[in-house]
C-alpha cells in the first residue's frame, strides 16, 4: 500500500520593530541577559500592555502580501499555560479573530506551480529564553514580548521538498516586505511542522504528529522525510501512529518523542481584557497595500521574461530582495539589449565571490555602474575574462574602480595583429613539434600554442585573435 504525506507548516517570524509588542523595551539581539526588560515584559504585577502600532501595521502588511482577508475587527486573547519562559504564565496571542486569514502563497516546487493556502496570520508576543544547566534552568527575558507573527498554512503540502520551497518563498516574501530579518540562527524565524500520512487517494487525515526543533529549512525537509519513512514503516507493520510532538535531532538525523508535553493542553483562551479591540479600516488597508513592493515570484517571472534569464539563474538572485534589487540595477544600467553578458556575470563570478565571502551579491558593495563598466571591458575584448575576474576580486577588496585597476595593472589585451604576429613567430619557431602535431590533426596542440603565446605576452594577448591567427598560419604552411 502507498501512503502520501499531508504537511502543514507553522512559521513564526520576529517583526523588526524597534520596541517590543507591548512595551518600550528594545528588541536588539544579543544583549546582556535580562537587560532589556521592564515591568510590562517581565509581567510584573500591576503592569499593562499597550500595542506597538508598527507591529500591527507589519502584521497587516504580511497578511495582504499573503493574499489574506484582513479582518475588519481583530482582538487579542490570552493563551494560558505555565512555563518559566512566559512571565505572566499566559501569552498575549490571537484566537478566533486573527489579524488576517484565508490567504495563499503561490510557489514553484520541482518546476510546478503550486498554491499553498494560508489559514491565518496572527500577532503574538514571544517568550523568553531558557538555558538548561546540569541541575537547574536559567531564564533570560530579553526576548520576551518581541512581536511575533504566526503564519499557519493549511495542511496541504505534499512533500518535504514542497515544504522546503514554501519556506523559501515565504521567507522571501517576508523579507521583501522589510518586516523581519528572517534569521533562523538568531531565532527570528522559526518553523514547526505537522505531518500525517494517509493511504494514497484517501480523503480523511491520518493521526497528526508535530515536529519541532528544526533550525534550518534543510532540517525541516530532512525531519519531514524522516517522519514519512518512520510512519510508513509503522503503518506497513499495521501499527498506529501516536498523536504527539516530536523533536528533531540534528546530530542523529532522527526525531524523538517529547515526553513532557504529552498531557493534553487546555489553553483556556479568552479575550484579553487589557487590550480593547482593533478596527482596521479599508483606508488603512489601502495605504498599507500601496507600500507592498513587487514580490519575489512576480520578480522571478519578470526576470525570466524581460532579461532572458533561465529559471535556475533567476532563482539564484531573486529570493533576497537586496540582491534582486542590485541585480536589477545592473541589468538596467547595462546598455545592450541582450542582457545575457551582465546576467552571466551576476550569477557567475559575483555569486561565487559572494559564496566564498558568505554574503549576498549586494553585500559585496560593488556599485552597479562599476560592475557594468567591468563587463563592458570584457565585451570590448579589452581584457580577458580571467583578468576581469581578478579585477572583480580587487574591486571587492579595495573598492577601487575597474578602469583604475585595469590601468594600474596594465591589463589591456594586445589585439593588434602586427605585435601579435611577432610573438607568434617566436612561439611557432620554439615549438615546431606542436605546430607539426596540429597540422597532422592533433587539434589539442593548438590550445597549447595559444597558451604559450599568452605566457609570452604576460596574459595580455587576446586569446581569440591568437587562435584565429594561429589557425590561419598553420593552415597556410
Amino acid at each position, binding site marked *: 500500500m502507498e501512503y502520501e504525506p499531508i504537511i502543514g507548516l507553522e512559521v513564526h517570524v520576529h517583526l523588526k520593530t524597534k520596541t517590543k509588542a507591548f512595551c518600550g523595551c528594545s528588541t536588539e539581539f544579543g544583549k546582556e541577559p535580562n537587560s532589556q526588560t521592564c*515591568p510590562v515584559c*517581565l*509581567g*510584573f*504585577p*500591576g*503592569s*499593562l*500592555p*499597550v*500595542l506597538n502600532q508598527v507591529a500591527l501595521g507589519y502584521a497587516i502588511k504580511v497578511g495582504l502580501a499573503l493574499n489574506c482577508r484582513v479582518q475588519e475587527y481583530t482582538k487579542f486573547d*490570552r493563551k*494560558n499555560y*505555565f512555563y*518559566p519562559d512566559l*512571565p*505572566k*504564565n*499566559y501569552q498575549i496571542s490571537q484566537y478566533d479573530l486573527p489579524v488576517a486569514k484565508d490567504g495563499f502563497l503561490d510557489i514553484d516546487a520541482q518546476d510546478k506551480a503550486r498554491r499553498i493556502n494560508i489559514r491565518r496570520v496572527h500577532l503574538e508576543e514571544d517568550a523568553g529564553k531558557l538555558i538548561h544547566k546540569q541541575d537547574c*534552568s536559567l*531564564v533570560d527575558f530579553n526576548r520576551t514580548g518581541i512581536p511575533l507573527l504566526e503564519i499557519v498554512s493549511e495542511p496541504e503540502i505534499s512533500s518535504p521538498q514542497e515544504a522546503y520551497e514554501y519556506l523559501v518563498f515565504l521567507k522571501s516574501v517576508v523579507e521583501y516586505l522589510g518586516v523581519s530579518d528572517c534569521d533562523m540562527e538568531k531565532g527570528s524565524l522559526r518553523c514547526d511542522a505537522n505531518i500525517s500520512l494517509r493511504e494514497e487517494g484517501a480523503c480523511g487525515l491520518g493521526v497528526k504528529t508535530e515536529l519541532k526543533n528544526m533550525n534550518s529549512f534543510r532540517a525541516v525537509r530532512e525531519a519531514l522525510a524522516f517522519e514519512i519513512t518512520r510512519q510508513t514503516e509503522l503503518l506497513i507493520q499495521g501499527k498506529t501512529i501516536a498523536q504527539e510532538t516530536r523533536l528533531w535531532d540534528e546530530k542523529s538525523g532522527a526525531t524523538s518523542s517529547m515526553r513532557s508535553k504529552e498531557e493534553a493542553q*487546555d489553553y*483556556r*483562551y*479568552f479575550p484579553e*481584557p*487589557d*487590550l*480593547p479591540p482593533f478596527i482596521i479600516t479599508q483606508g488603512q488597508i489601502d495605504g498599507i497595500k500601496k507600500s507592498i513592493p513587487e514580490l519575489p515570484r512576480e520578480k522571478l517571472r519578470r526576470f525570466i521574461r524581460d532579461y532572458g534569464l533561465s529559471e535556475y539563474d533567476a532563482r539564484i538572485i531573486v529570493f533576497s530582495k537586496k540582491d534582486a534589487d542590485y541585480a536589477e540595477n545592473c541589468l538596467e544600467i547595462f546598455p545592450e539589449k541582450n542582457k545575457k553578458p551582465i546576467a552571466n556575470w551576476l550569477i557567475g563570478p559575483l555569486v561565487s565571490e559572494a559564496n566564498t565571502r558568505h554574503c549576498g551579491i549586494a553585500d559585496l558593495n560593488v556599485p552597479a555602474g562599476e560592475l557594468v563598466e567591468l563587463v563592458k571591458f570584457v565585451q570590448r575584448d579589452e581584457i580577458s575574462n580571467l583578468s576581469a575576474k581578478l579585477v572583480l576580486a580587487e574591486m571587492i577588496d579595495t573598492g577601487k574602480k575597474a578602469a583604475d585597476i585595469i590601468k594600474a595593472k596594465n591589463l589591456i589585451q594586445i589585439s593588434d595583429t602586427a605585435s601579435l604576429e611577432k610573438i607568434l613567430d617566436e612561439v611557432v619557431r620554439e615549438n615546431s613539434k606542436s605546430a607539426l602535431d596540429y597540422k597532422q590533426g592533433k587539434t589539442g596542440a593548438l590550445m597549447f600554442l595559444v597558451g604559450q603565446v599568452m605566457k609570452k605576452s604576460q596574459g595580455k594577448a587576446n586569446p581569440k585573435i591568437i587562435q584565429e591567427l594561429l589557425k590561419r598560419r598553420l593552415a597556410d604552411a
Partner: protein
Amino acid sequence: MEINKLTAYELIKKQNAGEVTSQEIIDSLKKRTEDVDSKVKAYVRFSDKSFSNLQLTTYNLQLPLRSIPVSIKDNICTEGLNTECCSKILQGFKPPYDATVIRKLKEAGASIFGLKTNMDEFAFGSSTENSCFGPTRNPWNLECVAGGSSGGSAAAVAADEAILALGSDTGGSIRQPASFCGVVGLKPTYGRVSRYGLIAFASSLDQIGPFAKDVRDCALLTQVISGYDPNDSASVEAEVPDYTKALTNEIKGVKIGVPQEYFIQGMDAEVKDIIEEAINKLKGLGASAGQISLAHTEYAVPVYYIIATAEASSNLARFDGVQYGYRYRAGSQSLIDMYNKTRGDAFGDEAKRRIILGTFVLSHGYYDAYYLRALKVRTLIKQDFDAVFKDFDCIVTPTSPTPAFKIKEKIADPLKMYLSDIYTISANLAGIPAISLPCGFTKKGLPVGLQILARPFHEEMLFKVAYAYEQNTPWHKMKPEL
C-alpha cells in the same frame, strides 16, 4: 485641635493660613495610629518614613493635595515599598515602579502614609477577613467586619487614622466597606482612573477609587487620580471636569431612579427604612424620584463570579515563585512541583477557590456554557442601565443589603459572602460610576450607606447629589468611639 480628624480640604486651608504644618499632620496621624490601630488593624505594616515630597510642597501652595497624607491599599504598586496584596505569595515584594495613581498623588503634593492598608487577599472578599495579616475590625463595633475588600482603607479613614485613602473596587470593594464604616467611597467609571500599577484582580472590572470623610474630599481626591494614562489601554482620553463645581448643594429637578429589584428579600428591614428615608430627603431637596426596573439584577452575582474569577485565574497565574515573591523551597523538586507547592502553600482558601472556579469556567468544554454566557448576560445588564439613564440622571440604592456583619459570620459560607455584594456588582459589570455615602445608623449603632449610580463619566452627578444630601444631614460628622 485634633489634626487627624480634619478633612483634607480643612487641612489645606489651615496650611495656607499657617495654622498647621505638614509635620504636624503626619505626627498627629502617627499618634492616632499608635493609639488605635492595635484595635482596628487597618494597616498591615507601618513605617516611620514619610514618603512625601514635603520639601517641594512647602514651597508650592498651588498643589491640590499639598502635604496631605494618603493611605494606600496593599494592591497598589509603590516603588521600592512592599506591595503584597496581603498574600503570602507576594511576601517581601517591592515593585520596581510606581502605579500611575501614586505618581499623580506625588505630583499633587500628597505623601504616602502607612505601609499599607489591609485588604482581602488579592481583593478576594467582602470582609477583609481573607488577609494573611488577619481581619480589620470595624471602628464602630470591633466585633464586626470593616467590609471588604478595601476594609483597611475604609477603617483607617473612619477611625481618623487616615485623612484620605485609596482602595480598589472590582465588585463593591470600595463602596461596601465605605458603607460599613460610615465614610464616603467612590468607584469611578471604568477607564476614568488608570489601572497601571494596580495588581489586577479582574481586569475588565477593576477601578482604583478614593475613600474620604466627606464628599468634598472625595471629589478632591478623585480629581487628582483621574485622567488619561497612555500606559493603560483601557484608560479613556476624556477631559476631567472640575469636580468641585458640582458641589452646589442644589439638586432641584434631578431625576432619581429607584430600582424595584433592589428592595427585595434578604434586605435588612432597618436598612430598608433608612434608605427610604434618604430617598425622601432627596425628594425634599427638590429631586424627583421614580421607580425603575433593572430587570437582570438577579443575574449580576452569577455573571460577576464567572467573569471576575475567570480573569483572576489568568491574572494570578504569574505568581509562581520565579521572578518575585514567595517560593516553596523544601527538598529537591521538579519545576511542576515548585509551581504546585508554591501556589498551594501560599494562596489562601478564597484565592484557591476563585482561581479554581475561574480556571473551570474557561476550561475546555465549559467556556460556552459559563464564560461566554456570562459575557452575554453582561451585555443585558449594561443595556438595563443604558435604558434607565435615558430618562433618569442617577439611580439610588442601598450600598449593601445589611450593615456590617460579625467577624466569622459568613466566612465559612462563600456563597452567602458573595451575595453580600448584590447591590454593588452591577456598577462594575456596566462600567458606570457609583458612590457610597453615610445615610444613617442602625439601632445598634452601625452605619448604613446610600449608593448613587450615574452614567459613564458623569461622576459630577454623583458628587452633586451626594453633596446636597450630605450638607443637609448629620451623618458624615459622626465619629466612632475608640
